[in-house]
């Protein structure tokens, strides 16, 4: 039955996935087991996205199915959910002056489906909020997104703010989005640029494999 649920999610069949979830609950299957199947399904969706078999609509649709399943099983859920050890912690946000979120959300989806813990600061994030989050969340990596050409300076200013707070060596910084190119890495003082969501995953994996302060 677990495989059936996974297949229904991966096939984007929302009605079937919800029906199976209800059936599983009626049969007394533990909600945590259902969530684990959902996690497997999301990993398969992410993997198809990496292989260019799936695109943005499938990410959004599977996210919607997951949300609906979670709503059904929430009342039954105990507090022992756990998805194993995370590969690393990443704080992510769209820099100040910019309210675009599509690129950021895709990257976060892919990082989460690759078992990274992501703290989403949202859009139009002020410098102080990035600085504060490095102190409170102690992330390994900071991701900054921006769509407008104006964000090159926002990225630069944000990284300067982090340096002034003496925190630059605490995190690796990746940037990307809309008009951002490789040139902006040096301009803004970041560590790396990613063109696609998978670039972000590759970078994060590479960084977590080595010493983050190197």
């Amino acid at each position: 039955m677990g495989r059936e649920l996974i297949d229904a999610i991966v096939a984007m069949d929302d009605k079937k996935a919800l029906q199976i979830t209800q059936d599983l609950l009626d049969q007394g299957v533990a909600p945590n087991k259902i969530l684990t199947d959902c996690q497997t399904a999301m990993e398969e969706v992410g993997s198809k996205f990496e292989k260019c078999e799936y695109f943005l609509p499938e990410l959004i649709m599977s996210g919607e199915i997951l949300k609906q399943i979670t709503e059904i099983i929430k009342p039954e859920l105990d507090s022992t959910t756990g998805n194993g050890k995370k590969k690393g912690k990443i704080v992510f946000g769209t820099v100040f002056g910019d309210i675009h979120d599509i690129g950021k959300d895709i990257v976060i989806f892919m990082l989460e489906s690759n078992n990274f813990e992501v703290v989403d600061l949202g859009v139009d994030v002020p410098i102080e909020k990035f600085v504060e989050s490095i102190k409170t969340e102690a992330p390994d990596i900071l991701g900054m997104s921006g769509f407008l050409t104006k964000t090159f300076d926002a990225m630069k200013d944000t990284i300067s703010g982090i340096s002034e707070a003496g925190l630059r060596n605490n995190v690796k910084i990746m940037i990307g989005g809309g008009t951002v190119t490789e040139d902006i890495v040096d301009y803004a003082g970041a560590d790396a640029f990613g063109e696609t969501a998978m670039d972000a995953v590759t970078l994060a994996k590479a960084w977590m494999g080595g010493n983050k302060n190197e």
Partner: protein
Amino acid sequence: MNEKYEQKRKRIDDTIALKKPDHVPIFLPQSYLPARTEGITLKEAHYDVDAWVRANKNFVLKYDPDMYFFIEAPINGAGQVHDILGTLAMKWPGGTLPDDVPFQFVEGEYMLQGEYDHFLDDPSDFLLRVFTPRVFKNLEGFSKLPPLKNLALGCYGTPVYGMAMAAPEVVESIERLMEMSKHALNFTVKSGQLYAELAAEGHICAANAPVLHPFDIISDMLRGMRGTMLDMFQVPDKLISAMEKLYPLSLGGAIGAAQATGNNQIFIPLHRGADGFMSPKQFEQFYWPYLKKLIEDLVNANLVPMPFFEGTYEQRIDYLQDLPAGKCIGWFDRSDLNLLKEKLGDIMCVAAGMPASLLQTGTVESVRKQTKEAVNTFEGKGFIMTSSTVIDEAKPELLQAWIDATREFSSQ
């Protein structure tokens, strides 16, 4: 028209027809840049039409490109218009954003999935009474109007309308519209004067009005990206029916704008059809048929479509080979130049070549190198030099180096 104008026109027309011009035309999509070079804030660009017109005029006269961009592009209606309407689906400098931050759209699910039936049954009724009050908070009164179908009652229906129009909220909304119209008209009159003045001095505006693909209208304006992408799985037939309803609006709007402005080049900014936004199969079902039809219908109406392929279109490029040859300008953002030349060299004139980021952060040397490579890739034929997207920020010396280098390398 004057000689300078005719020279540029011939250069562009030859390029569109895939013939070799005297040199590669340069299209400068200036967007907010004149505010920077002329020292006005973005708030002033939105609120002071005289200052904005003056800044654009000085900019175009100074840099003298073969084509410049319409000055409404970053403004989308004067700031006063949006203050009066209480616009919610956009934020703008000096209004709902700080004075020097570029405008941005606030995408939302302004039409719910369950409302497709209302939209399909009577789009105008839905748009006026339901959608408009959601995106303009000061037009809430229109939600109090009776269904527009009551107009079928003719003189019998007047009591119904008489009652509704007397409601204070409706009166308020109508007054707002009338007040707004003065500012909208002022902007249009002054921008129209600018286009005429610049034409008299030999300058060509690349396009005067944007026309959206029906999928993008629904995705950008009505359902939001998330909404339309769920619709692709959950209610695909309704999504397609809604596009069918909207298609005549896109086409008719383009033809009407061309007639009103006398500019036969039609700018079509494309959003959700780019690589990565949907699969090739979804592109074939939801996007390509309407894009192809829009371009073909515009060509048949003797207009020159100028689709802006934002993002990359490398996975879609084979589809573009089906378009009529030598009839449109394809403006490309990040697609590979060699691939564009190889696949589209005999199909459409390609406008591309300069990453907007390089004009902001590069050097004279890097800009010249990039320009030379782009010009050489196309061998000076069927190619318009432009930036990857509209230019909000750039170093003036890099801008000048880019323009000079384009003429230098393509005249050799």
